[in-house]
């Protein structure tokens, strides 16, 4: 047998394979900027496939909002780290009673198709969003406008009598009037939410065609979209707003895996990620990976643990106090969450006008107090905290459970749900059998958005089924107060009442840790966990 040379077969195959691999790889690490910003640079950001069509009235999740928000300019914008509201498309918003708002818009602003933005574009868009047969996701946002019930009857089978809300009146090309059902002092901030963007006339002629090619009035305009691949936008040079962008092309690259996107970010193939994968957060690895490319922000959101009133044994104030005092927030945010969160001690995200430290007096780690309260509560049995287990949700709650177990000497289990969808159907179906994760992120930066939806009787996100007539009254009073500062004070009074009842236990407040690539000179994270587009600058190559 003289076949020994055949041994070379696999070696040759492997070697040539390695050579091919070497040839097709590489090419990274060639772009170190000279320090200047390139006003015509291109930026690519991490994205996920939008869950709905790219129409403002129908987009509410991050994947779609990332594209929709820069394409549309609303009446009010939010600036800076504390999201200060300012008039963007609005020239003036005036009210005397918080019920009737007179809105004048700036003249000469254009949609991307060249038509001018006029008052009726807002009125038509809001009517479209509210009209029940259109089935728009954001329809609830218009619900306090007068006449909403006529276009969107509570009974889902009823046919609406009209498709126009009586509370919306166009007063001219650049002026319209909004009348609300009841006074609502935060309305002038709420209309900064993307659902309140204007829609061009072409939308109403052909909504289906519009979905394929959205036309907005924002700093960036739509170029193309390949499902599951990318959404491309480019600068709208006729844009007149203060939030202009300082780059030319935006490519929202769609990823299935955050881990892969993170590796691409490190190698400079994608320029911005608004969240880091759990593997990078674990052990604080991201700090070493990113160095000065780490971008921190402050998200306007808060994590609480809801204690549902309908679960037997849990409707017990002493028990809630005991649980709250038994959680070592400082240690968990430091070790388990690796400084991506800070401990919470109130019901409002830190950084919102009106948020105060120490509102929740039982939110400090106090083992002795916790034991005492627990003894008073007379609770027998086992405690559980339920949540969806994906996306790094599980670990901090397991840690919280352990902290409770160690302090109180009571059994505590984490109960996982398979995914967010299943989790939310448990919560909205009132099928919790113990405590549940109840995180909230604000749609618009106002103290009101942290109280009304969560703690008002029947609120859209009242996971604990909390109901307190005094709180409802305080909230209603604050809603009806025209003076902004006075309203904030009243909302704070409501928060104080809630803190006494402890319907849910504030645990932590997300800092917001994002990352930029070496191609970017600057980038910031906004309060919605979105790239703050006006802050992005590209390094000259």
């Amino acid at each position, binding site marked *: 047998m003289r076949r020994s040379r055949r041994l070379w*077969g696999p070696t040759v195959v492997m070697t040539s394979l390695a050579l091919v691999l070497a040839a097709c790889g590489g090419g*990274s690490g060639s772009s170190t900027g000279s320090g200047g910003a390139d006003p015509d640079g291109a930026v690519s950001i991490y994205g996920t496939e939008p869950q709905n069509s790219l129409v403002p009235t129908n987009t509410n999740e991050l994947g779609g909002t990332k594209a929709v928000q820069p394409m549309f300019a609303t009446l009010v914008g939010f600036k800076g780290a504390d999201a200060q509201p300012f008039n963007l498309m609005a020239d003036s918003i005036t009210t005397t009673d918080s019920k009737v708002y007179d809105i004048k818009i700036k003249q000469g602003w254009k949609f991307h198709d060249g038509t001018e933005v006029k008052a009726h574009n807002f009125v038509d868009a809001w009517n479209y969003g509210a009209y029940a047969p259109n089935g728009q996701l954001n329809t609830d946002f218009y619900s306090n406008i007068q006449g909403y019930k006529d276009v969107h009857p509570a009974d*889902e089978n009823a046919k609406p009598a009209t498709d126009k809300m009586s509370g919306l009146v166009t007063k001219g090309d650049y002026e319209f009037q909004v009348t609300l059902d009841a006074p609502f002092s935060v309305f002038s901030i709420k209309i900064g939410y993307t659902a309140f963007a204007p829609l061009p006339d072409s939308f109403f002629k052909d909504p289906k065609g519009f979905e394929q090619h959205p036309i907005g009035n924002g700093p960036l305009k739509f170029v193309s979209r390949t499902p599951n691949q990318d959404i491309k936008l480019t600068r709208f040079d006729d844009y007149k707003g203060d939030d202009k962008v300082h780059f030319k092309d935006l490519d929202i690259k769609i990823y299935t895996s955050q881990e892969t996107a993170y*590796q691409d970010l490190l190698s400079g193939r994608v320029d911005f990620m608004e969240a880091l994968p759990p593997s990078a957060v674990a052990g604080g690895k991201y700090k070493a990976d990113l160095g000065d490319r780490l971008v921190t922000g402050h998200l306007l959101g808060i994590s609480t643990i809801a204690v549902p009133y309908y679960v037997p044994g849990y409707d017990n104030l002493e028990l809630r106090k005991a649980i709250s005092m038994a959680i070592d927030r400082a240690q968990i945010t430091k070790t388990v969450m690796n400084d991506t969160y800070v401990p919470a001690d109130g019901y409002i995200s830190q950084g919102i006008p009106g948020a105060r430290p120490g509102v929740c007096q039982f939110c400090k780690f106090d083992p002795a107090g916790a034991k005492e309260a627990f003894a008073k509560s007379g609770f027998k049995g086992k405690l559980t905290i339920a949540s969806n287990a994906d996306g790094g949700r599980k670990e901090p709650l397991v840690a919280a459970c352990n902290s409770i177990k160690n302090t109180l000497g009571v059994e505590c289990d984490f109960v996982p749900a398979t995914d967010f*969808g299943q989790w*939310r159907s448990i919560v909205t179906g009132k099928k919790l059998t113990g405590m549940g994760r109840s995180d909230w992120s604000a749609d618009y930066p106002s103290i009101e958005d942290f109280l009304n939806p969560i703690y008002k009787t029947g609120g859209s996100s009242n996971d604990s089924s909390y109901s307190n007539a005094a709180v409802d009254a305080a909230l209603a009073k604050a809603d009806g107060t025209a003076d902004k500062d006075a309203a904030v004070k009243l909302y704070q009074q409501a928060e104080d009442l809630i803190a006494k009842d402890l319907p849910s236990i504030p645990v932590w407040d997300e800092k917001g840790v994002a990352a930029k690539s070496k191609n970017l000179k600057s980038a910031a994270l906004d309060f919605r966990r979105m790239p703050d587009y006006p802050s992005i600058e590209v390094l000259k190559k």
Partner: protein
Amino acid sequence: MIRYVLRRLLQLIPVFFGTTFLIYVLVWAVPGDPFSGKCGQTACPQAYIAQMTEKFHLGDNVFVQYFKYLGSLFTGDWGETFNGTSVGELIATSYPITLRLAVVAVVIEAVIGLTAGVLTGLRGKGFLDNLVLVSTTFLISLPVFVTAIVLQLALGSNGLGLIEASVSDNPSVGELIVPGIALGSLSMAYVARLSRTSIAENRRADYVRTAIAKGQPNSRVVGVHLLRNSVIPVLTFLGTDLGALMGGAIVTEGVFNINGLGGLIFRGIQNRESATVVGVVVLLVVVYLLMSLIVDLLYAVLDPRIRYD
């Protein structure tokens, strides 16, 4: 022969209906409301749910739904995803990429697997044989996602820096080699083992001995007489494997961010988009059935003793 092909093609029809029905029912039978997580922390508005229920016939009984779905499928309409993208369009943009990836994987597993199998099969016990046995056992015991992530980390920018972590939107064959290795590694091990066994078995067959006795050159004995017979089980495996690879790319495509059919199924399952899942699986079923038909027909070419009818 033609009658055989026709019969096989007719057999496709019940299989097609059976599989699509099962898949349709299974996808929709997942308990829970498909819209529960769609609206963040608040519940979805009734008007939205009503509209989507109407659009996807969710109010109907699952059998009626299935026939409505089939009806539109036969008119060339694959349906729409929840965000209004046409599923047919999605499939059209993603299948060429998956096909390319699957072909790369099959080529890799055929070339490396067959080479290793033939060499070890001919030589019998020894260092090389042990090496192949150990390395194939190693590959078989690793799940695909481990292989894929290890390759990505080791060869990516954090490791040797040979490849990028993700693959571009319209990848070249070069870019697909590493994902192809990850995808094909398991089958590569099986191909090596299958061909090794079958070569070792046939090496002592009478016809091989006759060929050697006739004084034929060694290359001809191995290349024509021995390989042609031994490759039949391997070919069966490779043929159906191409179908399996197109579906099995779910993990690999997820890791390397390849926008192919696997990724479509993955996202479809995650977002409960039954139209996408059913559509892609229907396509895979057809690919599977056609591949096994082609393999069966190839038998006759390789081994004249096998006849149809």
